[in-house]
Each structure stands twice: as structure tokens, then as C-alpha cells.
């Protein structure tokens, strides 16, 4: 049985080392925060200028000038710090973010990532996506294995505009955990009841 969104997020939470500085992208990556074991010290970075992001505030305690990169009201944990965007992206590009967990439209077997624009679609923008993809020390992508129309998202070569080239280390989908291995995807783990053949059929690149 394929993993649910929450199960994918729980898998991803295991990728987060103690004490790590982590940036969580839009979509399923967001859910990872909820699956971190209590007591595990993880420093969530929000690229609008916050490290040590806490949970949403209690109703009535929202601060309009304390938001995350999704413009949602958040809180700051003890030990958190605020800074300007120059410093925030210095942190990101300079390799001081240990891990970015991102969504994707396509991931290629060589690690190419496409997650910002669909040709012919409405352009939402780049935001911090390209800096995060280029700068974070490790990139883990969380995504459904195929699109809603059943098309593979793990491909030999991206057809969508790239966010960054050769940056993705690992992909966690509803079907499997896979590493980008250059000439193909290396299967690390299969979802319970999912066969290698099923994963292969849903992937537009070799499995190695």
C-alpha cells in the first residue's frame, strides 16, 4: 500500500539529524515539522529571515510581523533569531542550511530539480526555491511518484524548467525512497506491498 502524505512526511522526519538547520518547502514538506520527535532539537529556517521557527501561534497571539516564507503567522522558539534577507540567503547559499526538504514537479536521475514553473502554466515565481536548491547541503524531495494524470515525475531528464542542476540527493514518494544515482534512481526502500516492478513502471528512468 502506498504511503500517505503523512507517512511520507514521517519518513522525511527521519532524514533530519539532531541539531540540524532545516528549511521546509511548500506542500508535503511542511508536514515534516509535525513528525519530528518531541525533544529533537531542529532549527527550522524560514528564508524571509527567521531561524528557530516555532509552531503557529495560539489564536489571539498572532503577530503580523512574525511570519514564515508562506506569509503565515508563526512563532519563534527560544534561541531563535531574526535577520534580514541578505543574511538569510547568505545562510542558504553559504551551506549553513544542513537540509532542505522540497516539493517537486520533476526530478531527474542526475539530481536535476524542476519545481517552480510549468511551461504554459501560470507562473507563480521563483521565491527562494533556486537559492535553496543550489545552496542547502542536502536536498530531499517529497512528491507523489506520478502526477494526477499518472505521468512519472521521476524522469531521465527534466522537461520542465530547472530550479537547479544536479542537486537532489534523495526522493521520497508514495511508492518508495530513492536516491538520485546518475544513471538511474537507486531504490532504498519500498512502501509496504509495493513491488520493484510497480516502481519501475511508474518511473521514467532506470532503477539501479
Amino acid at each position: 500500500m502506498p504511503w500517505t502524505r503523512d507517512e511520507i512526511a514521517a519518513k522525511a522526519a527521519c532524514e533530519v539529524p539532531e541539531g540540524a538547520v532545516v528549511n521546509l518547502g511548500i506542500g508535503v514538506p511542511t508536514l515534516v515539522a509535525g513528525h519530528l520527535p518531541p525533544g529533537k532539537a531542529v532549527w527550522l529556517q524560514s528564508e524571509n529571515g527567521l531561524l528557530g521557527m516555532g509552531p503557529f501561534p495560539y489564536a489571539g497571539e498572532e503577530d503580523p510581523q512574525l511570519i514564515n516564507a508562506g506569509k503565515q503567522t508563526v512563532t519563534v522558539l527560544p534561541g531563535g533569531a531574526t535577520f534580514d534577507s541578505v543574511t538569510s540567503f547568505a545562510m542558504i547559499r553559504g551551506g549553513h542550511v544542513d537540509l532542505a526538504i522540497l516539493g517537486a514537479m520533476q526530478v531527474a536521475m542526475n539530481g536535476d530539480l524542476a519545481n517552480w514553473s510549468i511551461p504554459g502554466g501560470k507562473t507563480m515565481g521563483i521565491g527562494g526555491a533556486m537559492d535553496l536548491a543550489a545552496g542547502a547541503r542536502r536536498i530531499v524531495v517529497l512528491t507523489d511518484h506520478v502526477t494526477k494524470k499518472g505521468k512519472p515525475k521521476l524522469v531521465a531528464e527534466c522537461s520542465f524548467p530547472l530550479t537547479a542542476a544536479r542537486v537532489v540527493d534523495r526522493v521520497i514518494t508514495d511508492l518508495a525512497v530513492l536516491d538520485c544515482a546518475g544513471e538511474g534512481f537507486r531504490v532504498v526502500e519500498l512502501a509496504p506491498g509495493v513491488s520493484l516492478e510497480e516502481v519501475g513502471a511508474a518511473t521514467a528512468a532506470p532503477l539501479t
Partner: protein
Amino acid sequence: MSKLRPDLEAALEGLEDGATIAVGGFGLSGNPEALIEAVRRKGPKNLTLVSNNAGALGRGLATWLEDDLVAKILCTYVGTNQDLHARMAAGTIDVTIVPQGTFVERMRAAGAGLAGFYTPTGVGTVVAEGKDTREFDGRTYVLEEALPVDFALVRCRVADPFGNLRFYRTSRNFQPAMAMAAKVAIAEAETVVPLGGLDPDDVHLSGAFVQRVVHVPEHEDVIEFRTVREPAAGERGEGKRGA
């Protein structure tokens, strides 16, 4: 010689048609709301706007689009800015979308007297097309050039008459770099304190980078996505993001 201006109109002196204006704030948070509204009233045309989001929900800088003040935009994220989507679809506005780190670093470079820098961001993507690339230690970087602006409009928590500024929480964002990059940086301050009212170590941006200050205690600070947790629940949830 105080940099305090008596009102918004005086603060905007010399802002004319065709100006390049950087405006601080992330989405609708931490915007120089009064200055944005005062520019709208003044009504300069053919502006180049440098802003992360160029407004949202029909508010803030979106009102400049509504009034057709803006000919060009440099931004990083369009997102839910329907006014901008509509104008992009209609082809009535020239929009350049750049990576956020490059966006702010280019202004920082202008303010710091640097002509450009080599960044890894955007290499191998459309962002690097037509730009010089170069290898350093086996990795490819793209040359991005400084982005100076004519005016910067920024919002801060505290200012003094020399223009020393202090910001609050995540409303600092692009504001220091924008002020640095501007010929004329105008700070809209929630609080104005006398010289010496800020400890030297508490100043976030030196007055050397700020030309004018205007005191505007009131601000709305629209929350775009009000997210809260249940008092009972112990769950963490930073929610979705996207800019």
C-alpha cells in the same frame, strides 16, 4: 540637521515619473503602508518597481498596478497577486522574476559599491541565460550585477533623526538592502526617538544609508494567512509556504 520630514509629501519630494523604486516588506507584512499610499496619491507614472511580491489581495503595491503607475516590475514571486497575474496575462506590464537571494544580494552589492558577484543560484536554469558564467574550484557560478535604485521606501520599528533604524522580527527582510541601494532611502517609522535613544549596538541599519525619516505610528500590517494552533493540541505545524 535632522532627516525627519514633517509629512509624507515632504518625504517623497523629487519622486517623479520614471523613477526606480524599491519597496520593503514581505507580502503585505512590514510594508511602508503610508508611503505606498502617498505615492499612489501623488500618481507618478512609468515607474520601475522593485519588490518581492508587488502587493497582494488588491492591497499595498497592488494599488499602484490598479492605477497604472508601474511600467516594469522586478520581483521574485507573483503568487496570489491577482492584479499582477492579470496584467502579465494581458501583456501590459514588463515583469522580470528573479531568485530571491539574487534579488536582495544585487541591491546589497549596489549599496556596498560592488559591481557584481558570482553566485551558484540559477546556474543551469533560465535565470543564467545570457549571463556570464565562470568556474571557481570546479563549480560553475553566474555573474549577477548590482541593482541600484532611485528611491527605497522602507518601514521600521524605531528611527532616530539621523536615520538610524531598528526593525522588528521578520519585517526586517529586504529593507536594509533596499535602503543601501537607494540614492534616496525613505524610512517610515513607527516610533521616532531622539539621538541616543538607540544603543549603538542596537542599530540594525546606520543612518549613513538613510536620507529621510517620516513618523507614521499607525499601520495595518495585513495578515495574509492567519494560521493558529489549537490550545489543546501539542502538534507542530509550520503550514505551507510559498514565496
